[in-house]
């Protein structure tokens, strides 16, 4: 029977050479039992209901590649190959809706499966087991870390890309009549977007020689003092270019907020809805829209 002292991890970390030797031994063990451990891992992934977006065959195929890369990373101590593979894997599985907890979960499962097999192999020699685990754990944790970080980075990259795409889509300046532009705003206005909106609008006013612009904010859910001030600035900047701005579609909630926080919008022309705004704008430019029957009657 061993004393408690023997059970505790070795007091000083093993030397680099020793670690390398132990890792070599470990790697050959993992290579020998490749088929069995891989199957055990895939089984546990299915049982834990991870990667439900993938079929069993796919899971097994990915498990094989991850396993081989994992063992290689343990052997060489370099993570480039594993990391590249993880990034590549993330790229493939993110569009299928695989979550972060699943990716972290499967890597941790693999770590557990391998640790179990080590227990089974060395259970008769506690000292050896301890030293093997000393060598194995830091390397395994580093791998888990890298894979998780790689996955999250890839996700963030995808999100950033989508944000960019949404931002470009979200600010069309449309000409509805000669010298009349409309700018429908949908969603949240943050300072960056407000700036982009203003710049785009000013450019459009110049290129279309617009006289009146209708800004429709029906699709803006909420407004605070900052957003209101941004809007006022946009209106002012458009006026400096000689264009009149009409704001339409202020919801009752927004109207109430603006009055409560005391933003001064007295300089701004507002009309209830987009239709009213366009009619008002047409009047300002000098158009008058009549039903066909009336025009033929007067002609």
């Amino acid at each position, binding site marked *: 029977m061993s004393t408690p002292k023997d059970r505790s991890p070795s007091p000083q970390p093993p030397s680099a050479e020793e670690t390398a030797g132990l890792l070599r031994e470990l790697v050959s063990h993992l290579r020998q039992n490749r088929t069995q451990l891989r199957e055990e891992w895939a089984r546990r992934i299915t049982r834990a209901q991870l990667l439900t977006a993938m079929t069993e065959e796919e899971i097994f195929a990915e498990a094989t590649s991850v396993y081989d890369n994992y063992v290689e990373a343990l052997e060489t101590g370099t993570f480039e190959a594993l990391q590249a593979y993880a990034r590549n894997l993330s790229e493939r599985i993110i569009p299928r809706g695989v979550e972060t907890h699943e990716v972290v979960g499967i890597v941790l499962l693999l770590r557990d499966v391998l640790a179990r097999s080590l227990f089974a192999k060395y259970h008769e020699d506690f000292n050896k087991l301890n030293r093997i685990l000393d060598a194995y754990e830091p390397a395994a944790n580093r791998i888990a870390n890298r894979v998780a970080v790689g996955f999250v980075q890839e996700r963030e990259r995808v999100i950033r890309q989508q944000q960019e795409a949404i931002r470009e889509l979200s600010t069309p300046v449309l000409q509805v009549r000669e010298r009349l532009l409309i700018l429908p705003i949908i969603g949240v206005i943050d300072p960056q977007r407000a700036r982009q909106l*203003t*710049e785009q609008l*000013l*450019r459009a*006013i*110049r290129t279309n*020689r617009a*006289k009146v612009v209708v800004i429709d904010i029906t699709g803006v859910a909420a407004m605070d003092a900052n957003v209101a001030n941004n809007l006022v*600035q*946009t209106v*002012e*900047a*458009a*006026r*400096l*270019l*000689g*264009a009149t701005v009409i704001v339409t579609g202020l919801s009752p909630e927004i109207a109430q907020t603006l009055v409560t926080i005391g933003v001064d919008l007295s300089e701004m022309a507002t009309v209830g809805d987009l239709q009213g705004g366009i009619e008002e704008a047409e009047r300002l430019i000098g158009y008058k829209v009549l039903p066909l029957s009336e025009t033929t009657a007067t002609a």
Partner: protein
Amino acid sequence: MEVPILKQGTYLIASIQSALTDADLSQLREALVARVGKYRARGVIVDVTALDVMDSFAVRTLRDITHMARLRGAETVIVGIQPEVAFAMVQLGLTLKGVATALDLEEGLAFLNTKARERIDRA
């Protein structure tokens, strides 16, 4: 550099060609207000298309010109403010309140003609 002031019918057109010093701006103000009386002008157009910067002194001078010319019987319109300049101005809070603006010279002339018609209609 002195700003050339052209007479076109009952309107005066001051076309700024390059960046102006504060002294140039003051000189422009004096000259414009004097000529409004001399030529009995009813409208003034200041074309700032060539300016890619507009500081607070320039903005104040333009506002002064507008108010002084109005007292002497002429409407003023500032034309040709660049989009980038407009954006920078509102960021700095220089908004030319009470001063008419138009996209370019053509629009400015159209604006003054409308104003003149309104005056005749009122009379």
